[in-house]
């Protein structure tokens, strides 16, 4: 058995290099951006030699990973706070730039509603993203506090680790209402269910992107991708998912 295992061991060490011939960019992506960036990845890889690897989590979690030395090239956050934190910690090559703006959306299982307030009062469980890790969660809390609804709905909230998990609760209908991002309603698995409403008086969230100091990809590959990000092709994808351009 040991002999077998050793064989695997040897095999294991020799294979990864076979994959890494071409350039690969590791991009840390905030959950709400996963669907558009996945599409951009597909378009990008059709036209260019290099490949993209997406690591999707909440902006807060990705920031924690980056501070702990995660080997990512780029960081696309759902806000400006986290990339600025990364920059201030000396882990970025330059100041973060705004690349899209997202908006908070409200989803409910009912097809017709009078107002969000009323729905919130009726709902038994409401999903939001964790305010301490996910910018859309923080924005939701801010909004609920401003509308003086926080105290009232606090006990009915269930927290997703990030926006994807909130979307997952929506897709499986485990909650009757939830606050998510504009991109969610364009995702096939959940677009058909319930109804969607832009949250009134919630300001657009500027999403920041930053080039990381730990970047392992070549400057050429990074520039090529950044150029693609501001090309009409990529910008259209973001618009299709309901993002505003700065």
């Amino acid at each position, binding site marked *: 058995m040991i002999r077998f*295992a050793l064989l695997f061991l040897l095999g294991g060490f020799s294979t990864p290099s076979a994959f890494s011939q071409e350039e690969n960019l590791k991009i840390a992506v905030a959950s709400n951006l996963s669907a558009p960036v996945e599409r951009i990845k597909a378009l990008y890889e059709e036209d260019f030699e290099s490949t993209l690897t997406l690591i999707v989590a909440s902006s807060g979690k990705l920031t924690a990973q980056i501070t702990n030395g995660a080997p990512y090239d780029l960081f696309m956050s759902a806000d400006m706070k986290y990339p600025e934190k990364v920059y201030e910690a000396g882990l970025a090559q330059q100041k973060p730039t705004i690349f899209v703006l997202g908006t908070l959306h409200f989803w409910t299982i009912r097809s017709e509603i009078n107002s969000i307030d009323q729905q919130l009062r009726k709902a038994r469980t409401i999903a939001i993203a964790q305010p301490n890790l996910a910018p859309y969660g923080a924005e939701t809390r801010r909004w609920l506090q401003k509308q003086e609804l926080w105290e009232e709905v606090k006990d009915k909230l269930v927290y997703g680790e990030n926006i994807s998990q909130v979307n997952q609760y929506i897709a499986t209908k485990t909650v009757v209402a939830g606050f998510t991002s504009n991109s969610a309603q364009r995702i096939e698995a959940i677009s058909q269910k319930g109804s969607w409403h832009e949250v009134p008086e919630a300001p657009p969230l500027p999403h920041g992107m930053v080039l990381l100091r730990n970047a392992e990809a070549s400057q050429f590959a990074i520039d090529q991708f950044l150029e693609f990000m501001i090309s009409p092709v990529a910008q259209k994808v973001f618009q299709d998912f309901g993002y505003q351009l700065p």
Partner: protein
Amino acid sequence: MTDIEWSPFWLSFKLASITTVSLFLISTPLIYSIYFHSKSIRTVLKAIISLPLVLPPTVLGYYLLLLLRPEGWVGQLSQQWFDTRLVFSFSGLVIGSIIFSLPFMVNPILSALENLPDNYREAAYTLGKSRWNTLIYVLLPNVKSSLWVGGVMTFAHTIGEFGVILMIGGSIPDETRVASIAIYNEVEMLHYANANIYAAILLLFSFIVLILVYLYQNQRPQGVI
């Protein structure tokens, strides 16, 4: 839905193989030092070995993160000596898995050794064998079935590892996105078709492993798990 990626399975398989082989090598001297110690020290050592069984994976993951990160002392040493980053890397996962699966390898072997009649050991001593040689040539061959079970359980347990890897892995494809993490990821991305396939494969795998272990056990008089 996106295409099915098979690399998480390959990665899990690689991690489990390396962990099992490493633990095989680490366990023998460890078992030696526990088995030949006095009873009171043995109790403490056994408790330490079994810690990963009861410790929440997040606790283990947290301590590992503190140790392995670039500012942690293990992380710093590996950076200076081998120029490799441990956290969010495959090597880091191997370290984590070895600690996490340690009791699965050591415990079955140790309890089988303790059930062996003392006269095996004593007979070896009278024939002039040292403790080490007694362990390797007399005692371990007598608990061969437990060695097998220890190995298989370590392998299976590493395949199913999740919490620790979630904390120190970072879900990087081809590097730290093992099968269990890939399922979590696919579910979060609402790729249920992929998640179904991944989950079904792991379910089948776990079931087959247990069937094999129990079949093997049925042929032996003495229970091993």
